[in-house]
């Protein structure tokens, strides 16, 4: 708990807020990339403490939110029609597919299990040799090593009834897509601390240079976030643009080379569709052909038509920072966590869920 109490220290928070207040002379729009950061900002009430001139917009860093609807349909199909044991991280199971969520499928009798780690799924596969076990491998660079490792474990143990349904997305291409969007309003980024813990900083220097946009790799506690914002505002006010690392107690410049080796072994970069945003080139991971036996996309024949998104949902604009959740006409009305129109309303990292649960909306 030491790191938590230190980074939630009210006196430090007050000092940083004063620093930000003093440094900020004009309005700035900052995007925190990761959904974990969004939730911390809202849950700790930081948005109510920041000066009006600092406008935080919330980024696409919610893996559950950007998982395409047809992949959820596919997961439901595998569980219901192919009778696989479908394993998933918890916050994926309430996300609506085109007709139902995994939770609905579970209620209808499908064998869907909520796990903390894909290695658990490998264990389930070993214990149920007569069943196919599929892990819904969702996430950014942070979860990729564990998902890749599960494939390596299954291979090492000679387990053939295990595969993963990948929907891996990568942060840097998404940031570039946001910057290149003609409606973009973001002037600086708080980069996602835990993604950089794995990947290191190298991928971000070229983005900073190319677009002349300041970026601070930032953690998740109140003091982390305020320090990140303070560092970013200082750059913005000085007309500077560079990559800084606020989260240096966790993020090494070189990231975690061992974890990257595991990723590299199992996955290769690919184009990837982001729910609500569209396809971004080179923004995902796909399983390498040498591990095709563990690729649920290749292992199972799935014939389902590609479903359309709910037209009333503005998740795409929310995920690109163009709109705030409560600017959606259906926020808290037709769309609630119990009855979501889009994924950001259900995911524990979704901006809409954060606003619905924690924010006082007029």
């Amino acid at each position: 708990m030491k790191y938590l109490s230190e980074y939630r220290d009210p006196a430090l928070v007050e000092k940083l807020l004063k620093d930000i207040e003093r440094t900020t002379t004009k309005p700035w729009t900052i995007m925190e990339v990761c959904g974990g950061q969004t939730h911390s900002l809202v849950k700790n009430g930081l948005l109510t403490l920041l000066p009006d001139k600092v406008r935080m917009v919330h980024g696409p860093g919610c893996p559950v939110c950007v998982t395409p609807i047809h992949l959820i349909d596919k997961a439901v199909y595998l569980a219901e029609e192919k009778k696989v044991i479908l394993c998933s991280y918890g916050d994926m199971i309430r996300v609506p597919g085109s007709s139902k969520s995994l939770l609905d499928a579970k209620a209808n009798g499908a064998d869907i299990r909520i796990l903390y780690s894909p290695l658990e799924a490998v264990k389930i596969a070993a214990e149920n040799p007569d069943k196919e076990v599929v892990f819904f491998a969702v996430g950014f660079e942070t979860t990729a090593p564990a998902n890749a490792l599960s494939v390596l474990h299954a291979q090492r143990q000679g387990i053939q009834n295990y595969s993963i349904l990948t929907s891996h997305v990568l942060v840097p291409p998404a940031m570039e897509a946001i910057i290149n969007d003609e409606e973009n309003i973001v002037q600086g980024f708080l980069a996602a601390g835990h993604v950089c813990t794995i990947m290191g900083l190298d991928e971000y220097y070229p983005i900073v240079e190319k677009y002349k946009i300041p970026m601070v790799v930032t953690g998740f506690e109140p003091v982390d976030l305020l320090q990140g914002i303070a560092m970013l505002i200082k750059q913005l006010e000085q007309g500077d643009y560079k990559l800084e690392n606020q989260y240096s107690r966790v993020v090494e410049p070189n990231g975690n080379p061992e974890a990257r080796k595991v990723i590299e072994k199992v996955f290769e970069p690919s184009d990837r569709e982001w729910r609500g945003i569209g396809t971004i080139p080179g923004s995902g991971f796909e399983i390498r052909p040498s591990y095709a036996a563990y690729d649920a996309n290749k292992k199972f024949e799935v014939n389902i038509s590609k479903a359309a998104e709910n037209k009333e949902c503005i998740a795409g604009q929310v995920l690109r920072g163009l709109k705030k959740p409560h600017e959606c006409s259906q926020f808290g009305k037709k769309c609630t966590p119990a009855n979501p129109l889009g994924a950001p309303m259900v995911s524990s990292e979704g901006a809409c869920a954060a606003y619905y649960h924690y924010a006082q909306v007029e």
Partner: protein
Amino acid sequence: MEKNVLKMNLQCPMPQLDFDKITLGHGSGGTLTQKLLDSGVFTVLANPYLNQKHDGATLTIQGPLAFSTDSYVISPVFFPGGNIGELAVNGTVNDLAMCGALPQFLSLSFILEEGLLLTEFWEILTSIKQACDKAGVYVVTGDTKVVERGKGDKIFITTSGIGTIHPRATISTAAIEAGDKVIVSHSIAAHGMAIMSVRKGLEFDSTIMSDTRPLNGSVKKLLDEFGDAIHFLRDPTRGGVASVLNEIASDASVGIDIYQKDIPIEESVASACEILGLDPLYVANEGVFIAIVKASQAEAVVTRLRESSETAHASCIGEITTSHPRQVLLTSAIGGKRVVNRLTGEQLPRIC
């Protein structure tokens, strides 16, 4: 974990029986049922009312009553700090206490799953007895049914209870006034996290124990001394403190302000919540109550509660306000404000 879970200091030795597992026959109403009841249930729970062995209990009670019922389907049935048996007693005792009642009599119904080990049943039964003694209540009537293997989860228990209303109690949402203080009686979230720590697939090493305990003693003391200054009581079981406060805000059409820095929580519980990404405000308690108390008496109530070890961490965590009706607002430890909303479904473990 086993040593934590199975307390072997049974007061009543298990009878020697010619079966070691519950079978369908034990719920048939025939000789096997009789054997089970005679060898165990009646002996362990013996009291003058139950000993009548009639279809129901005949009781004489004076004055206004509270009546409550609850079903217990917890998994796993043995957990650090308790088991489903004491939970079933304490839960109903506490629901009565929250009505301002003095719990007296319970009914007890078992739905047993075929194959339940007799040693486990005995352990649960003994806990029921101990919990009844602690709370000062009698099991006066009951029922036992057995369902096929796979149609239950070892054991389900339903208890109902009645108790007379304390002469000085005026517990009601109508009694809640702006300015009233919100008090929690002890550290929160222990029960839910104790269960999490032994749930299949989530097991983690911890020393967190369930806080299951009867609250009627503490509540009686408060009512004896403070009477109608205690405006409202509720135990934050399922859904935790946040859900109960939302219910109160909405039922009484008031706003509630709470302060994160004042909410008592053990460090081990807080750490476990952090690791699993759960908000302790939504985690279940089984030995904590929330009291809405007249402002002028709040400090005295907290002081009195802190004198007892079971409510040693009592704390005033906020107050009732008219400014944001039906909404609970939390001032975070760092001074920011946020809404504390109702939970949609269960809290789910998150991705990263």
